[in-house]
């Protein structure tokens, strides 16, 4: 690069490998008067080279420099790759706080409305589906029951057992101080039946089945499988969601019962080994302390937890936006929202029965 008589002469190749150094070299000429850029000695240019020419042209714009001695090849490349006449890319502007709040409220209103419609649809088609299996794949309820119920049994059992052990162990030290060892059975029975069994099962199902429901439906949505079902005049809720809804409705009481019983067994280990209770005394106390209402409340609320997991998973699945990233996003959102609503429902349930009692 050389400057003589207001003419900047460039030489060699102007490519992505050379322009960074050339741009640095050019910085010493920025303040000089340049009216011509001589391209005679330039042998090859690529699009980075043309971007470099644009860059030096813009910084010398006040002198309106002209490019001279361009051969045909470079002239064609300049006409193809110059950005001077192309409008700049406008990045979306940021929105104000009021717009942000307004948008948030508007979206919340819409999504709540859509979720309620979906809930109504799911309940309607699930009820219809009991009597009329048309619109569902044969054997889909059994298949879903295996996925949602049987496959989850192992992890639910293991975690319930460990949870039972932990609760019993934590309380054993306190109970022992007062000679109230037998009350560990009361604690285990009441907490596992009314609270921990249904809650633990619901949280594991939200993480396991809720995420799988959301990602399966979202993937179907992204790959246009849902549209394909609609075009075959098949209701996607009936075909995809209802079998899951039926399966979870069948499986949840069984899973909660398993979780509760195994959790109580976990407590038994601590009662026998640490609190010197006999197994018979422990079970007698468990049976004595439990009343039918506790069992029904525990099982009853678990249905609501299960339905919330299916509805939220389906809602996020159907409302996916974007491609692979969108699927990941709605899967995470569905798990977080399901767990949130499971805890809220549990709190409401606890309040209702607290005041009733």
């Amino acid at each position, binding site marked *: 690069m050389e400057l003589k008589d207001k003419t900047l002469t460039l030489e060699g190749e102007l490519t992505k490998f050379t*322009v960074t150094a050339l741009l640095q070299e050019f910085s010493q000429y920025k303040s000089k008067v340049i009216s011509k850029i001589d391209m005679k000695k330039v042998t090859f240019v690529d*699009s*980075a080279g043309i971007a470099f020419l644009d860059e030096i042209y813009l910084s010398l714009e006040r002198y309106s420099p002209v490019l001279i001695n361009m051969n045909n090849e470079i002239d064609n490349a300049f006409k193809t790759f110059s950005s001077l006449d192309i409008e*700049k890319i406008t990045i979306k502007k940021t929105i104000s706080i009021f717009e942000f709040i307004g948008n948030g409220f508007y979206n919340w209103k819409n999504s709540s409305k859509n979720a309620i419609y979906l809930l109504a649809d799911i309940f309607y088609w699930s009820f219809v589906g009991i009597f009329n299996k048309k619109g569902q794949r044969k054997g889909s309820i059994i298949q879903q029951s295996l996925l949602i119920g049987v496959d989850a049994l192992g992890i639910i059992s293991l975690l319930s057992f460990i949870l039972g052990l932990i609760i019993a162990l934590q309380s054993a030290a306190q109970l022992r101080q007062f000679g109230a060892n037998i009350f560990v059975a009361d604690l285990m029975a009441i907490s596992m039946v009314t609270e921990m069994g249904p809650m633990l099962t619901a949280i594991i199902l939200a993480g396991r089945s809720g995420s799988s429901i959301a990602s399966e439906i979202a993937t179907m949505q992204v790959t246009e499988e849902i549209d394909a079902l609609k075009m075959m005049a098949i209701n996607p809720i009936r075909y995809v969601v209802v079998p899951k809804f039926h399966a979870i409705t069948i499986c949840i009481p069984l899973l909660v019962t398993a979780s509760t019983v195994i959790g109580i067994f976990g407590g038994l280990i601590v009662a026998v080994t640490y609190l010197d209770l006999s197994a018979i005394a422990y079970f007698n106390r468990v049976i004595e302390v439990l009343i039918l209402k506790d069992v029904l409340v525990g099982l009853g609320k678990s249905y609501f937890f299960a339905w919330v997991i299916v509805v939220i998973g389906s809602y996020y699945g159907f409302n996916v936006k974007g491609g692979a990233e*969108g699927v990941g996003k709605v899967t995470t959102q569905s798990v977080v929202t399901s767990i949130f609503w499971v805890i809220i429902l549990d709190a409401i349930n606890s309040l209702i029965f607290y005041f009733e009692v």
Partner: protein
Amino acid sequence: MKKPIISVKNLVAKYGDKIVLDGISVDIYPQEITVILGGSGCGKTTLIKNILRLFEPYSGSVKIFGKEVTEMDEAEYYEILGKIGMLFQNGALLNSISIFDNISIPLEQHTNLSAQIIEKMIRVKLNLVNLGKSGSLFPAELSGGMKKRAALARAIALDPVILVCDEPSAGLDPLTSASLDDLIKKLKELLKMTMVIVTHELASIHRIADRIIFIDDGKILFTGTLKEAKMSKVNEVETFFRVGKFD
């Protein structure tokens, strides 16, 4: 005779036990547009993915710039990939970032160009594929054809020595398809690019092809110039150029 830029010898590719490419040998010459032709499932995409080592060949040799691809270490392989642009059948844009950012990836990762130069290069590449105003959009906001054009802009971001396109015109309207062909020809002339293009579009083949490779059932049926292909007596090739259909 020119020295080939890509040379494939006795390439065998398998999916499980199924042989997809059965001892293929082809040469691709610099600054030419080589069109790979063949019916669905004949192994066209498998061939280009084996050439680029996106699939490991079962056996055979693939040389790019005279170097054996299957024996390269990772550093050498990435250096070669830096000189090759690839347009995938479905675009394969990264969905989580904007079109602008998609195109900036190779420029930021493989060059030390300044942000201003990169911005100008992206603007030009987007303009070349008629997406000048779509840089800030995300892939999910584009139609299928637009995605393909954005993916082409990404593939040519680095002005690659070799550009591989897997069905570039599929899903595009005839006008866009024709302008894409013009762009391909222009890039070949201006940047002295070598192009390997998989396409079925007869009109497009007539517009751009210098050389034809015709594959059928994992084997090469014909290789030669476009002129030779049009006069070929090989039944499948003759039928394709006469009626635009595969047998």
